[in-house]
């Protein structure tokens, strides 16, 4: 019975003990419960915060386009913030609710809805934060607006996404500049970002919100401000890259190598070049890779490119990189959609074999022939005479840093980089997808490349994906700098690093020979 008085002396003592000790027991019990809950929560949090997982795709093309190579942890943007930046900075996104304004490519999902992330943006959950950033496809997937025959034989007209071709859409300069400026923008605050995420993005839970408010957003902002302080002076000193181009090594020097901008030589400050195609990597084994031929190792070149995308030695996903690299060994470019006059092609082939094959190999009915006396070798720029900025941007100092630091003490330690004095003779497979031409994309069409520099377009619109079947390349009408109609990018060859001189091979051919050679080149 409740309230019944104790009978025995022991019961009385126990009652007294309970009266005295019950608060203590309650406190101890609470401490035990809280401790247990805390320990369990701690273990869960520990488990969550040691997570490093990313989705993988059975289809290698999907893996290439959306799989992670490990760039997100160190360089990426938390996914919820990625989602709401268009709504927070609508003017930068031209009021679009995606990143297409920067040239990112979107595909539709199985239900016909635009996919959440564009091609070249992968996701990874790292320390319980889902982060997105670049992969190989960011810079190596482009579009062609043409009538093409699908592998199943169906002719299809429209925009075709071509994995492995150089990106002709992505304006990386514009995207990076936006991010750096956004980090310093007064709107980039935890309150604004969290409010926008909860309104337009994936709602944050209580713990996540605390995490974002006190850790994720401040850390991201600090990172952006740090990069802004290092990169923005460089970017301001460079002509805008425009779509399909990137300065590979100068940001690399400032971010990964922590070099100070004022320690760089003036002639090395602009290294802007076109994104390269990455078809047929197998036959390129042993060739000098990169525009300036500074590396002869496919694996090391791949890792270097991954570092440029944001990977670090701690975060690199070797499995994915190896899987993609193996796939690229045999990746063929789509067959050229052009159908030039066969007789002209035959005549042009003769010209090419005589004057071009030794440096570039050749195309025949079986595909591309990667043989030639100097194919894949470095040709001095004294001989080539093309714009030297890209060549000068890679320096002995950077090479020394790479060899001394990247993947040091591992089997992947860099050791193949060299400083060259020219540009590499590249195979021309998939040539129809690789316009504009020359390493810096300064010559819009193949026909223009066969003309003397002074006859090549001084300005032209970059970023189109409509083919020019007459001249070989993408439609690139002239424009008046600094901008082209419709907000498109006007390429000005008078700017440093944009020069269209050099590579005078073929410019002295007779007009009909040039026409025949062009017909042959259109079949590549």
């Amino acid at each position, binding site marked *: 019975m409740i309230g019944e008085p104790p*009978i*025995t*002396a*022991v*019961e009385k*003592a126990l009652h007294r003990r309970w009266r005295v000790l019950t608060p203590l027991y309650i406190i101890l019990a609470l401490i035990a419960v809280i401790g247990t809950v805390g320990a369990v929560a701690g273990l869960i949090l520990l488990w969550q915060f040691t997570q490093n997982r990313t989705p993988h795709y059975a289809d290698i093309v999907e893996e290439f386009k959306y799989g992670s190579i490990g760039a997100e942890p160190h360089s990426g943007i938390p996914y919820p913030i990625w989602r709401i930046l268009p709504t927070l900075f609508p003017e930068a996104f031209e009021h679009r609710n995606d990143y297409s304004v920067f040239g990112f490519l979107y595909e539709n999902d199985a239900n016909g809805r635009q996919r959440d992330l564009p091609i070249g943006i992968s996701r990874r959950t790292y320390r319980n934060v889902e982060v997105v950033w670049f992969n190989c496809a960011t810079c190596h997937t482009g579009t062609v607006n043409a009538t093409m025959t699908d592998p199943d034989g169906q002719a299809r007209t429209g925009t075709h996404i071509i994995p492995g071709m150089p990106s002709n859409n992505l304006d990386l300069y514009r995207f990076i500049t936006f991010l750096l400026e956004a980090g310093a923008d007064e709107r980039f605050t935890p309150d604004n970002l969290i409010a926008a995420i909860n309104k337009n993005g994936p709602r944050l839970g209580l713990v996540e919100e605390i995490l974002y408010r006190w850790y994720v957003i401040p850390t991201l902002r600090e990172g952006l401000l740090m990069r802004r302080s290092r990169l923005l002076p460089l970017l301001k000193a460079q002509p805008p890259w425009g779509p399909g181009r990137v300065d590979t090594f100068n940001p690399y020097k400032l971010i990964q190598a922590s070099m100070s901008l004022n320690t760089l030589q003036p002639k090395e400050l602009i290294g802007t070049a076109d994104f390269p195609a990455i078809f047929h990597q197998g036959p390129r084994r042993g060739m000098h890779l990169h525009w300036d031929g500074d590396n002869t190792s496919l694996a090391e070149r791949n890792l270097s490119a991954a570092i440029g995308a944001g990977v670090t030695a701690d975060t690199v996903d070797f499995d994915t990189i190896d899987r993609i690299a193996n796939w690229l060994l045999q990746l063929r470019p789509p067959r050229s959609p052009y159908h030039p006059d066969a007789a002209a092609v035959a005549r042009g082939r003769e010209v090419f074999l005589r004057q071009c094959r030794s440096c570039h190999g050749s195309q025949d009915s079986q595909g591309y022939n990667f043989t030639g006396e100097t194919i894949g070798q470095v040709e001095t720029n004294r001989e080539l005479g093309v714009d030297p900025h890209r060549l000068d941007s890679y320096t002995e100092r950077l090479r020394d840093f790479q060899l001394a630091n990247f993947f040091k003490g591992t089997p992947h330690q860099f050791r193949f980089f060299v400083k060259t004095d020219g540009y590499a003779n590249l195979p021309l497979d998939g040539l129809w997808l690789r316009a504009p031409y020359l390493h810096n994309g300064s010559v819009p069409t193949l026909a223009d490349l066969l003309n003397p520099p002074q006859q090549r377009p001084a300005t032209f619109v970059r970023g189109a994906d409509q083919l020019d079947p007459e001249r070989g390349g993408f439609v690139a009408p002239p424009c008046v700098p600094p901008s082209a109609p419709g907000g498109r990018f006007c390429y000005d060859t008078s700017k440093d690093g944009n020069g269209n001189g050099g590579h005078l091979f073929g410019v002295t051919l007779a007009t009909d020979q040039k026409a025949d050679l062009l017909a042959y080149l259109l079949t590549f």
Partner: protein
Amino acid sequence: MFEDTAKDIIFTPLQFKNLEVKNRIFRSSVSGRFDNEDGSLTQTRINWECKFAKGGTGAIISSYVPVLMEGRIIAGYATIHRDDFIPYWQRLGEAVHSFGCKFIMQLSHSGRQMDIPGVHNYTRPTQSSTSKRESLHGFLCRAMTTAEIHYTIDAFAKGAWRAQQGGLDGVELHAANGYLFTQFLSSGINDRTDDYGGSLANRARFLLEVIQAIRTKVGGKFHLQVKISAVDHNNVVPWEKKGNTLAESVQVAQWCEAVGADAIHVSTGSLFPHPLNPPGGFCFETIAATYDAMISSGMSTLRNYFLFRYPILRPVFRWAWFRMKRGRPVEGVGEDEARAIRAAVKIPVISTGGWQNASKIREAINSGACDGVSIARSLIANPDLPQFWAKGYDLPPSPCTYCNRCLLNAPKNPMGCYEPLRFADHNAMVDQLMTIYNTHPILQIPTAEQVAP
């Protein structure tokens, strides 16, 4: 085998100052809850004691007999706190004497070591030298006032007088094994700062004043012996102090002799049961089935019950209990201590502690360790053990195994042997336990005046 009992030291009479016992075998104090709640003894107790008297024991030391109801150890044991109980005890004495056996009443007071308080003591903490709870079971207590000490001394004297009046052969003061006298004697328990605490002389004052009071009350010709613990080993619960040493106990024995004790009965340990008293096994399955009778008695009894009940917890108790037994024999566990005390006094010394082999007993007595031995468990197993020895056996055919199941059943079940190895089956064991209940009482029809309102 010793074939000539006339020359056998076991069967040589032991002459005390005021008492002669026909042999050297004493039945040590042991009993069950045989008696009435008011403290009056029953026919069952008489039957119990006569088993040993008939078996050839020289003298029976009764189970502890409280001199006050607030000094009961387990309710249901006979007391000697009332004059009208004298005839009952007289009758018991006569019964034992009829077998040529002596009967010595063990006068006791539980102090704080009260296992089952009974209805009389439900509502009050026990009296002790200290207000500190008993260490093993957490029995409550409070330090006695001087007036209460004097009152208790008088109660012991009256108890001895009642035993004398009942024609019993002597009394033994139970100053061992953790009861009230030990609580005063032990440096591990007594934390008083008055004349009854501090120095050994002060701690022994209560016992010595009781002996003096008894001598004053009964005179110098009534047998009086004192049972003491030679060494306290008070740290069964590891954080407790160790208590009295052998040297201190030798001094106490000498003081007892000086003030009128006729014999010293040597035991061990400052609580009961104790790892060394009685020595032997500790059957968790048994104690788990009986200790529940004590759960309400102390502040730590529920904890102990869990330690006994759940095998996963038993190693904790097993370590605490058995660590003191290492290296010590079961039989004659207190022989060395008895020898030390006997060398220091001129009165006879009785040793207790697992005695069962005739040869070992002879050796102990002949070597001067003691003058006689007291036995409980081995006599429970074989009440006619002396007869086996007289026939030349060193051990009986079915000896005590020292399993201690008799002890562990005491709080809840009848006293007797519970060693299953000694019985054909459970029913045989129960039959053995029930033999003492064959009382054939003369049942009365009470008159109207005899029926309580």
